[in-house]
């Protein structure tokens, strides 16, 4: 684990060095290839005067809301599909139809139906998360060994107890890997939706921040936004999800 970060650190420094060298050498105009010094100045300034913090908070709050709503919906979908084969058919059809569709392709429709504010971004996130997550959950539910369900019958658990005590814990590895996919997809969807919807001038999230920098011809600002996106991606995937896995499925021996 430690050596992974050592390696990343080494390569990161090397790449940054090459970057800076290229920038300083003047092969490319400063306008299309800004140096790391310029980028970090803009990054620092935007963080300091709060503009960037505001956008980060907005993006994270929308994505948290979207993930929460989509997870609940996906759980409901997967559970109804598990208990009723008619519903399973319907949900399977819906998933097959909607899963391959990128949220951005729906943009014109969303614009007409929901306008272009926070709501529109939320819809794109829910769309990008709901289908893969319910697919994963369904797979998880259906791959529970028969012996577990037989135990439930032995104990005469009712449906809710069965759900709460057996179904959900037993499929947790699938749930968490589903969440990981959901996060990755929704994070990408969020940034592109923010860039496209142009949301509201002052508060439109990180994608909007990048778009605004671009419009004002501020390439170091664009890079500052990109760096923040990378950082948040790394933190969430490497720390939050890794912690979650360690605390749950790895500890319980569900994951090898």
């Amino acid at each position, binding site marked *: 684990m430690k050596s992974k970060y050592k390696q990343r650190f080494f390569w990161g420094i090397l790449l940054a060095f090459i970057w800076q060298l290229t920038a300083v050498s003047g092969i490319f105009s400063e306008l*299309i290839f800004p140096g790391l010094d310029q980028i970090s100045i803009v990054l620092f300034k935007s963080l300091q005067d709060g503009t960037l913090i505001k956008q980060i908070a907005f993006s994270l709050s929308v994505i948290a809301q979207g993930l929460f709503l989509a997870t609940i919906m996906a759980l409901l979908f997967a559970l109804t599909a598990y208990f009723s084969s008619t519903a399973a058919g319907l949900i399977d059809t819906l998933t097959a139809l909607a899963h391959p569709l990128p949220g951005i392709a729906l943009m014109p429709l969303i614009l007409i139906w929901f*306008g*272009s504010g926070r709501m529109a971004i939320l819809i794109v996130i829910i769309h990008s998360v709901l289908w893969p997550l319910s697919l994963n959950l369904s797979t998880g539910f259906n791959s529970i060994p028969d012996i577990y369900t037989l135990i439930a019958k032995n104990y005469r658990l009712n449906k809710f107890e069965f759900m709460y005590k057996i179904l959900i814990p037993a499929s947790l590895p699938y749930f968490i890997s589903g969440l990981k996919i959901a996060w990755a997809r929704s994070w990408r969807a969020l940034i592109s939706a923010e860039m496209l919807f*142009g*949301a*509201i*001038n002052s508060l439109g999230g990180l994608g909007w921040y990048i778009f605004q920098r*671009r*419009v*004002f011809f501020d390439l170091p600002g664009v890079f500052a936004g990109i760096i923040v996106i990378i950082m948040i991606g790394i933190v969430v995937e490497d720390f939050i999800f890794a912690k979650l896995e360690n605390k749950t499925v790895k500890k319980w021996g569900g994951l090898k």
Partner: protein
Amino acid sequence: MKKYITIIIIFLSVLLLISGCANNEEASQQKITIAEQYGLAYAPVQLIKELNFLKAADPDLEVEWKQLSNTTSIRESMLAGEVDIAFMAIPPFLIARDKGMGWKIISGLSESPLGLMTNREDINSLADFKTDSKIALPQPGSIQHILLSMAAEREFGEVDRFDEQLLTMSHPDAMNALLAGREVSAHFASPPYLFLESREEGIKKILSGREAFGGDFTFIVGVSTEQFYEEQPQNYSNFLEALGKAIEFIDQKPDEAAEILADNYNLEPSEMRDYLSWSRMKFTSKIKGLDKFIDFMAAESYLEKNSYQYSELVFEENLAGEKAILEEGASQNEE
């Protein structure tokens, strides 16, 4: 060992990138690439294309027309050396010039009516906008945004009064949203969207571009990169001549021009004629209001520098004329 291989691969790809860029530049030497946008204000540019004015000047010249959807992407393609000549409003040009982009104005193209259109009965002036009514315009830093800020500054002394309620939308999207009456309460429109919206019932104009600016101003100018100007002076001159011919043609024979351009804009010839001769729709190579834009944008820190020599902004060989004409335009604005 592995490390070295990776390092070699990285260096090789950097080298490939550099040589790739070099090739592009070479290729652009033999032809001229012009970026176009949709809108009535660009009519003379369409005329150059339809009447082959460039081919007439130099039959060997290869002309490429690039359809791009917004000013920002045009600016970026010019920076990448993919576009030689483009047309846009003055503020986006100034923003990039201020950041150090090597480009200048070659000519004025058109003056045009602009208008802030609303679909709300209870809004009759800027003062009636509540904080939750959204105003759609192409993007921050666009001429529409600057004009709105100018009006806000004049009427309320707050430049950013409406900044919290702006929505970035392309003109067609904004028009649809305005007509549907959802989400958007107002749209800062340019022709032909302005004309289409003004024909709809329940939609009215509460602010014109002229009122916002406080005088006449050039809506669209032609711009080119210093690189193109220096490396291909002949092509530059040819283009300038063609542009001059096209502007004169539209100005003097609007009916004939409407006939030619109707198909291009997907309109009936009669409709096209109405649009081209709409009041305050004017095709001219003169540049008006440049100084005032600079003063305002520098005062509100859209620009860092607040004074420019005319020669820093406009090429020596141009259609707009000497500085005298610029000043004349500016003094008209102050009336």
